[in-house]
């Protein structure tokens, strides 16, 4: 996937905005600094504990804007519907999107609907796009980017990993655990705003969605040309998600999250940022998990509980349960 994006899309469509390789494109229109993003949602099953495709579609785009340090304002929503999809399902999803948009404080400004023949889509695909404004101070924008991480920066994580991915996988595969695993899907724009208010030196923000924390850290390490070093014992994973991961042989560091943020912060601002996260309902379990080093550039190191170190590589494909 990374090669596809690099070689085909960036190769053919590349420009200074896209070449930043952040989740949102950031550019100027007049005196305003705008973040603009899009995401497609193909989750199966459509409904899972803690959310549904509609809720994900709204929050996913809102969160990408938040990670550009932008205030999310307007979103669009395009639906590709498989012929024969029952109306009750569609209505439930749209109701959920309305509630999610209200919760995130965004307005749906435009939309589109296409119906495709039976078999041409898996019930429903949703694509959302979103636009937001960066904050400015005397005309200068507060810019954050995956390319701005610097050696010495602190790495913060807003809460527990793997809840979303394991909730979806459990529901999809019909696995019932004693404690239900609930997706963490949530709009992180409020949490991010609190951090930006408290700290003027946030360098990078990333929501660890598909590919999990490991992939998010790898992307930032590559964009910034730095090494990220994180402590395994500092990384929080909730008990139910952890149990599911152990059972299926899946590494929680690679599982998708939909309501979390990784923040790379200058060392002098880290304490204030952490404090701000913990004061917010979505960041109560926020922790410092590591730091940024100069080299080896582009690598992510994990310090195990035993004090030794191993490399955390970029994810390839979906995590699959192991054989025996």
């Amino acid at each position, binding site marked *: 996937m990374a*090669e596809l994006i690099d070689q085909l899309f960036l190769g053919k469509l590349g420009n200074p905005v896209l070449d930043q390789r952040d989740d949102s494109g950031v550019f100027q229109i007049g005196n305003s600094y705008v973040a603009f993003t899009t995401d497609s949602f193909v989750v199966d099953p459509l409904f899972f504990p803690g959310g549904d495709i509609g809720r994900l579609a709204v929050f996913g785009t809102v969160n990408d804007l938040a990670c550009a340090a932008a205030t999310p304002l307007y979103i669009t929503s395009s639906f590709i519907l498989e012929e024969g999809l029952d109306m009750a399902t569609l209505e439930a999803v749209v109701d959920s999107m309305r509630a999610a948009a209200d919760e995130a404080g965004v307005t749906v400004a435009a939309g589109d609907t296409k119906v495709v023949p039976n078999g041409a889509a898996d019930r429903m695909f949703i694509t959302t796009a979103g636009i937001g404004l960066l904050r400015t101070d005397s005309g200068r924008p507060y810019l954050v980017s995956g390319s701005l991480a610097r050696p010495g920066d602190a790495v913060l994580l807003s809460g527990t990993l793997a809840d979303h991915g394991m909730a979806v996988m459990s529901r999809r*595969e019909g696995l019932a655990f004693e404690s239900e695993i609930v997706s963490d899907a949530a709009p992180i724009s409020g949490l991010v705003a609190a951090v930006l208010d408290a700290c003027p030196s946030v360098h990078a923000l990333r929501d660890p969605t598909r590919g999990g924390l490991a992939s998010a850290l790898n992307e930032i390490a590559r964009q910034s040309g730095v090494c990220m070093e994180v402590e395994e014992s500092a990384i929080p994973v909730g*008990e139910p998600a*952890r*149990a599911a991961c*152990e059972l299926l*042989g899946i*590494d929680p560091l690679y599982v998708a999250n939909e309501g979390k943020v990784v923040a790379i912060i200058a060392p002098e601002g880290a304490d204030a940022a952490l404090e701000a996260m913990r004061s917010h309902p979505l960041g109560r379990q926020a922790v410092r998990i590591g730091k940024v080093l100069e080299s080896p550039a582009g690598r992510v190191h994990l310090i*195990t*509980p*035993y*004090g*030794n*170190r*191993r*490399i955390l*590589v970029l994810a*390839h*494909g979906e995590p*699959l*349960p*192991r*054989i*025996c």
Partner: protein
Amino acid sequence: MRHIDEYRDPEQVRKLVAAIREASPPPMTIMEVCGTHTMAVGRYGIRQLLPQQVRLISGPGCPVCVTPQSDIDAFLGLAARPGVTVTTFGDMLRVPGSKSSLEAERARGADVRIVYSPTDGLETARRNLAKETVFFGVGFETTAPGVALTLAAAARENVPNFSLYCVHKLIPPALSALLSGEAPAVDGFLLPGHVSTIIGTSAYEPIARDFHVPCVISGFEPVDILQSVLMLARQVKEGRAEVENQYRRAVTPNGNFAAQQAVEAVFEPCDSSWRGIGVIPASGLKVRQEYEAYDALHRFGISEMAEIPEPAGCLCGEVLKGRARPADCPLFGSSCTPAEPVGPCMVSSEGTCAAWYHYGGE
């Protein structure tokens, strides 16, 4: 979490690491023969914790990796047939045959379904009687009993559209073959904990006795592995060659009798080809004749296949025998990566090369 946290306790790990150093073992090479051990060693960085003179190498412990290309090609052939649904454990999805993979065939429209259990394969058959359902029976002694019970159930219920493509293999014959052949000098075996829950500790007595190689059956957590290394180090130092059981919470001397019986009821041992190694006598399982209706080889008329040579440059065979490290392979990390694997050792979640790529090797 019980049965996990105690065996990952950093304090226990520290004590065992110290004890191994104190035991002052001579230079020794320990081979593990289980993909889960390969992964655990990588994930916890066990090699970094051991003194330099204790070398841990991987053997043919990944059942996916040792499944011959010819079998994968044959199974892909079934997948490509209209009217056939193939069911498989997730591991097999990306393993390359000579020209394709299950993932590629699925993208071309083949009905390939990942299941967590062979019973899911049988259920798939029951739910769609209009199509043939074939289950790819890959795995060592750990997975064979579940597959055996599924086959027996299919026969008992006369499920008309279910069959099994059986490529199960057995560990002890492989160990003998490695020690008899040109394997590197192995000073001790770290034996697979879950295979051993089925076959018991006594299954390995001939290895220790006939080849004078120390054996320790090990669990999968860092404390288990380090304790097993300590036990092996002591055996080597004291000149003993015994079968010891570190994984006592799960493994008994005689193993799981019911599981063994289930396997014997529908399978019988046969000579089997191991990818990269060749034919090892009595090292595989095949479906007994009375169940041939449920044997995919019989049902689909698949006959003896010639072994297909590995792609040029691929060192999977040497890696599987413990004679090469992944980093020794010219393709490792360059033309052979998890995204574009050349050989099975890279793509299987329990493959030695995948473990090195993922966790960084030594």
